[in-house]
Structures are given as C-alpha cells and as structure tokens.
C-alpha cells in the first residue's frame, strides 16, 4: 500500500481560505470594478446589504471597512449619510506592474487554464443559444471598446464583452466565473507594455468571436475564444518574466 489515500483525503479536505467577509468584499469589488455600480452612487443600507448577501450585519460591516480602507467606498455621516462609491482612481502603470510581478508564473498559468475553460465553453454554448438581442449587445461592447478613451473604459468594454458571452450561454455559473476572472486579471490585460495589442487589435479578435457566435459556429467560436484568452495569458507571463529578470538584475 502506498500513501496515496491518506494524502489525497487530506488535500481534498482542505477548505478554501476565503471567508464570508472576503466573499462579500470580492462580490462588491466585482460589481464596482465592472461599472455595474458607478461612482457617486449610494450603496443600500447596511441592513439591506446584509440581507441581500445573506450575511450577518457584523460581517457586512467588516466587508465595508475593507472596501473603505481600499478606497472603493467612502462613508458620510449625518442625515444624508451612507456609503458611496468612490470614483475609481486609475491604477497607475507601476501599480499594475507590481501586481503582475507579485503573481507567480504558475498562478498566471493556472488562471489562464481556468479562463480558457470558461471562455471557450461559454463561446461554444453562446453560438448555440444566443439570440439576436445577445448578438446586438456583443457588437455594442465591441464598438464601446474601439471608442474607449482610457484604460478603465477599455477594460470595462473588454470585460463586458466576455461576460455577455457567458450570459448568452444561458449559464449563471459560467457568468459568475467569468465575472470573477475579469475582476481578477481583467485590468492586467490592459497594461501598456511592449507587444501588448491596442484596443483596435483586441476589438478585431472580439469581432471574430462574435461573428462565429452569430453564425452559430460553435466550434469556431470556442477555438477563437480559447486562442484569444491563451494569447492574453501568454503575454502576461512573458511580461511577468521580463519584470522578474529586471528585478534580479537590480538585486544582483
């Protein structure tokens, strides 16, 4: 007998670290990040939000405190008080590079693997299940991307396109997964680095995927979406290694 049994039981029984508070924080950041709630808007009251998330008020307060500390919301006291969404401060190129550097190449590869699975499957199903309203929305996010004037807008149009594919696929789970992935890596994809495509080039790739979906070509849509995601992750890993090499140089 080998130790396979003992080992696998132990590792499968380890829980994900994310607690209730972190989950609420993550969901709210996704929603703010993707522009579903925009700056200046007031969040519902603590009691309402707690009910909505199905968490205790204490947990919700903890989550709001984290968001406040990270600059996503501000809380005003008084009669017209409450929590308000702050204008998303544009993340500096340097901050983004630092975030990319902190991720490991392995983590990036694993994120990429998951995104390929989600985006590919969503695109295949969308080609079978989308109707003309979805097609119109997909095309509108492509125009939004070509017309975007800054990184935040480009990044949002990009994310919304991918999320809309999952919505067209009629799958709540794929939609949630895509939203989470976009919140995790979406911003990094718009780093302004050598070899990174401009909005027009990305929009062209989106157009290819959208056309395959509109033509009902599930295989082509899947393959194009997978290739699109794979290329993006490969660029990120490339840049990560490049930044790492520069850092090694400095350290030496």
């Amino acid at each position: 007998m080998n130790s396979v049994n003992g080992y696998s039981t132990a590792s499968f029984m380890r829980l994900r670290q994310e607690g209730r508070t972190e989950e609420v924080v993550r969901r709210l950041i996704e929603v703010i990040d993707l522009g579903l709630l925009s700056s200046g808007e007031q969040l519902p009251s603590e009691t309402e939000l707690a009910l909505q998330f199905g968490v205790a008020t204490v947990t919700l307060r903890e989550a709001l405190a984290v968001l406040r500390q990270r600059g996503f919301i501000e809380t005003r006291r008084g009669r017209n008080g409450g929590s308000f969404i702050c204008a998303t401060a544009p993340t500096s190129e340097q901050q983004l590079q630092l975030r990319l550097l902190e991720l490991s190449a392995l983590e990036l590869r694993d994120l990429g693997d998951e995104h390929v699975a989600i985006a590919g499957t969503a695109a295949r199903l969308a080609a079978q299940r989308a109707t003309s309203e979805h097609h119109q929305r997909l095309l509108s996010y492509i125009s939004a991307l070509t017309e975007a004037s800054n990184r935040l807008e480009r990044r949002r149009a990009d994310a919304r396109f991918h999320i809309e594919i999952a919505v067209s696929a009629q799958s709540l789970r794929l939609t949630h997964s895509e939203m989470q992935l976009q919140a995790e890596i979406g911003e990094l994809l718009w780093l302004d680095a050598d070899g990174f495509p401009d909005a027009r080039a990305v929009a062209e790739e989106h157009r290819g995927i959208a056309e395959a979906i509109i033509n009902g070509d599930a295989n082509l849509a899947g393959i194009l979406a997978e290739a699109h995601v794979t290329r993006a992750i490969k660029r990120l890993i490339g840049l990560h290694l490049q930044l790492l090499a520069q850092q090694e140089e400095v350290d030496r």
Partner: protein
Amino acid sequence: MQSSLEIPVCVERLQGVFSGVFANLLALSQQVDLLWQRCAGEARRPTSRDLSQLRELIDQQLLQRNSPAYGAGVLVEPGELGDREMYLEWSRLAGAERTLPLMLNFNQRSDSFYNYLNMPWYSGPRETGNTAVEGPYVDLYGSDMYVLTFTLPIRFADRCIGVAGADVPLPNVERALLSSLLRLPCNALLVSAQGRVIATNTADYSAGELVVKLRQSRQWQAHALEDGLQGWQLLCEDRSRLQSAA
C-alpha cells in the same frame, strides 16, 4: 403509476402554473388605475410618493405562500409622474418574510443608468398592448438568477402609463412544470416564443437550449399555450413519424 395526461389537460395545467402571476399583475395595474383616477379627481399629477402606496400590495403578493415571484412592481412611463421622469416601485424578496425595495440608477449620464424603456419586457407590452413574457435569461443586474419576466401594460384614459411586472426565477416553477410534463406519454418540451426550452421531460434536451428547428419538424407536434403565454408551445414528439422522418 399515475395515469397519463391528455395533451389539452397538460397545456391547461402548464398555463395554470402562471395564472397566479398574471392575476397579481392585474391586481397591481388596477390599483395603479385607481391611483391615477384619484389624482385626476384632485386635478394633479401623481408623484413617486403616491406610487409608494403600492408597496403594501406588492409585499403581500411576494410574501404569499406558493408565489413563485422573486420580485414585482410597477414601472412608469416618462412624463406621468409630477416629480420624476423615470421611476419604478419595485420590491424583491430578502429571505422568507421580508422584502426590499429596489433602488436603481436613473441618472441618464451615469454608466449604470437603468433605461428600462429599451428593455423588451417594457417596450413590448407598451407597443402591443398585450402581456409579454421575456426569457428565460441570466439576470445579471437585478436578481442574479435565471428568470422569466412577466409584464402587463397599464392603461389609463387611452394611454399607456406604465407596466406592471414580475420576475419569476425558473427554478421556482420547474417542479410544477415537470409534474405535468412527466405525466405525458411522450417526450415533451415547453418552449418560449423565441424557441427556447423552458422545461422538458427528457434528458435529451435542456432548459435554455434553442430548439427553433424542432418547431418545423414533422416529428414534433406543436400545441399553442394561451392565457398571456402567447407564442409559447408545448412540443410533443410523435414517435410514429420517427421512421418516416429517418
């Protein structure tokens, strides 16, 4: 084993699953009509405050036992309210015994401006004067569920003053639909006007799938649904046509 259902009986039962939803919408629209009448009598335009009187009825409907709706309310046509251009009085469930009013962003310059005028479940009934059912669809901005949206136009003095609506998550009605579909002697699909499967008694198809082609196939016989469910069909497989089709 239970005896099998005749197709017309099954159609009637499927319609019955949603009859309560339509009855509630009608009650809501009648109360709005009363409200508009009263304000007309007082020679003034209704305000968002008047509209908030609907909250009691909406809550009562949502909290009704066996009600499949997750959210319900009324959306008004621009220019109808004295104090607001676009407005809705809408609540949704928050746990088994509570509801929460839905707040949306009606600031037209904002990214997240919620323009319901362009939503098919609003524009549809406004233009046709008939009830509309939208979906099922992934509702990303409202309920975060896979839902059907039912709407009914509200008319007052020969004009459309808004729409009464309800969101019904598909999982909330699946059991009721299946209990009728499973008693049919054949493979059967309940299909929306768009040709999307709402529920089916066979694992060969699944909810959310588009089956537009089946509607033209001789192997599948279509039976129309009524009572507000215009365009919906019950597709029953006719196995005797299997050979001739092959």
